[in-house]
């Protein structure tokens, strides 16, 4: 064995070519920035943390799916429409048809994952860019969602899910809150403020950890493990890196890509279900622009738009940056439209950085 050249790789360079690096720096910067400008606005109180934590978790759920799909070399622009569609399916089945909520949730998952498979199948069979195929589904699903909603209930917002979901086991898995006792105890000993008036007097202002956050953490751990530690993860990299080369050594590229489309649809449905359970209603316009926000999180996280390179941890940090900035500007009292300016700016910056890093890895000049 001759690894005498091992020392030549400097620690800095090794860190540079990790896909998460940019996102780690970004996260630190964002926290420092908001600590300075909004440190005393309640942004870092338990309530504040819950506020941006939930928003970040929402982004993270769809970013994990988009991340794995992008590394496999494809896009899904129908994520946002899928969120609206899944929500309306749950609401129509449970409220309008009177099915148990758990049946409605399972039905929504089955239908949406099947639609994800259809997306993937069309991309593979036609050889068209996934950009076009899923753009078509962005419109098809949004249109269907509005039509279905108006056809069955004559309105685009369907309420009453909260009442229907009362005591439903599966509904709790998406809309519930855990560690209530712990947070009550935090309230009792004074770590968290408690309500001083009204029907919830004595209860902590932060009830517990929402299941949504748990879903986000579980999906991040699963996605990261799948991508970096398993054979299937190696195939995801290979399918996005060079599909033909992967096929030559026996990687089932088509199966990998279709499964990733299905996983993305699964994540969108998790998002939709949590949202419906939280609000107690579904609306046909939910999830607007979410597909792009997911892609931005993934790109901030260091993934290449061309596939074959990226990190789930990076995408999760991208989601955290996204959530903290969106809510932080609100806490800081800044004009909320500035958020979009920030988003565009950071997107361009991240893509330029990623391109540079790719050149470093592949030795292109």
């Amino acid at each position: 064995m001759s690894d005498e050249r091992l020392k030549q790789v400097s620690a800095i360079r090794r860190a540079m070519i990790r896909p998460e690096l940019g996102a780690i720096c970004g996260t630190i910067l964002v926290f420092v920035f908001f600590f300075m400008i909004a440190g005393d606005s309640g942004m870092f109180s338990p309530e504040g943390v819950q506020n941006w934590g939930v928003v970040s978790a929402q982004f993270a759920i769809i970013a994990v799916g988009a991340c794995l799909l992008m590394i496999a070399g494809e896009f899904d622009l129908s994520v946002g429409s899928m969120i609206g569609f899944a929500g309306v399916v749950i609401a129509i089945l449970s409220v309008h048809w009177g099915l148990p909520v758990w049946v409605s949730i399972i039905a929504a998952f089955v239908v949406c994952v099947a639609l994800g498979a259809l997306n993937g199948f069309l991309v593979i069979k036609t050889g068209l860019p996934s950009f076009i195929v899923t753009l078509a589904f962005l419109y098809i699903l949004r249109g269907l969602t509005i039509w279905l909603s108006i056809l069955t209930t004559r309105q685009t917002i369907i309420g009453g899910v909260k009442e229907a979901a009362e005591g439903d086991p599966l509904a709790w898995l998406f809309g519930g809150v855990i560690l209530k006792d712990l947070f009550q105890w935090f309230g009792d000993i004074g770590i968290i403020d408690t309500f001083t008036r009204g029907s919830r007097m004595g209860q902590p202002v932060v009830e517990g950890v929402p299941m949504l956050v748990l879903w986000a953490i579980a999906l991040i751990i699963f996605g990261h493990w799948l991508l970096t530690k398993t054979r299937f993860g190696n195939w995801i990299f290979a399918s996005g890196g060079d599909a033909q080369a992967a096929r030559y050594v026996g990687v089932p590229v088509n199966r990998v890509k279709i499964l990733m489309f299905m996983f993305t649809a699964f994540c969108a449905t998790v998002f939709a279900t949590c949202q419906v359970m939280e609000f107690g209603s579904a609306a046909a316009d939910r999830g607007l622009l979410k597909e792009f926000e997911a892609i931005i999180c993934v790109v901030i996280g260091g993934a290449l738009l061309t596939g074959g390179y990226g990190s789930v941890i990076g995408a999760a940090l991208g989601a955290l940056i996204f959530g903290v900035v969106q809510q932080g500007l609100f806490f800081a009292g800044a004009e909320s439209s500035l958020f979009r300016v920030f988003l565009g700016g950071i997107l361009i910056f991240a893509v330029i950085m990623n391109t540079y890093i790719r050149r470093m890895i592949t030795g292109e000049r």
Partner: protein
Amino acid sequence: MSTPLIEMDNIEKHFGPVIALGGVSFNVMEGECHCLLGDNGAGKSTFIKTMSGVHKPTKGVMRVSGQDVVFDSPRDAMEAGIATVYQDLAMIPLMSVTRNFWMGREPRKSFGPFKWIDFKHANQVTMDEMSSMGINLREPEQAVGTLSGGERQTVAIARAVYFGAKVLILDEPTSALGVRQTSNVLATIDRVRKAGIGVIFITHNVRHAMAVGDRFTVLNRGQTHGTAKRGEIKPEELQDLMAGGQELAELEGSLGGTI
């Protein structure tokens, strides 16, 4: 003489009205480097794709170690011990050497229902195989993109050999490389041949072929012009056969023998 590792007997391949291969016979022995030469459009690609299971021959018989075989897919050919290394599709630059080396055949550990790649073992084997091919990696996690073109070909060859290839088909492994990298690849071919593997070296560069070849077959317009042993044929004759003789000979005169 022993039976050839792979034998192609009077293979024909038609694409509609086009006869891409019009009766080509070819074989490779153990520990031999058989060069297949031909100009662009001579039918080299069609021929190797037939051998590696991508195309099915229209007519003719293929034998592996004396047994008649029909390959339905590249997978069948791989299982029969025939590995193909393509010029530009050998490796994925953004992935690490280890990930590339094991792609499609990752070694796994498991605990209950969970299975994951045994990276310790995978990295160790990769380092060992690479150093036996004369490439010293800094670390197995380094991206293939940091390797030179010649090293990439060598990784692909090492991979094929490690996974039990008996016949190695190399599709123009040297055509995009510089001088030093070419000699590295040629040295690798020599090393592989000495390990008893039959090498089919496809090229249109006569000098590269002469450097390592034991036998030479020239393909021209879907036909072979016979097979010659090392020492029986001069480079100029091979060049003539590839170009179909005549015109090149005239051209060579006017260019002062530089082609």
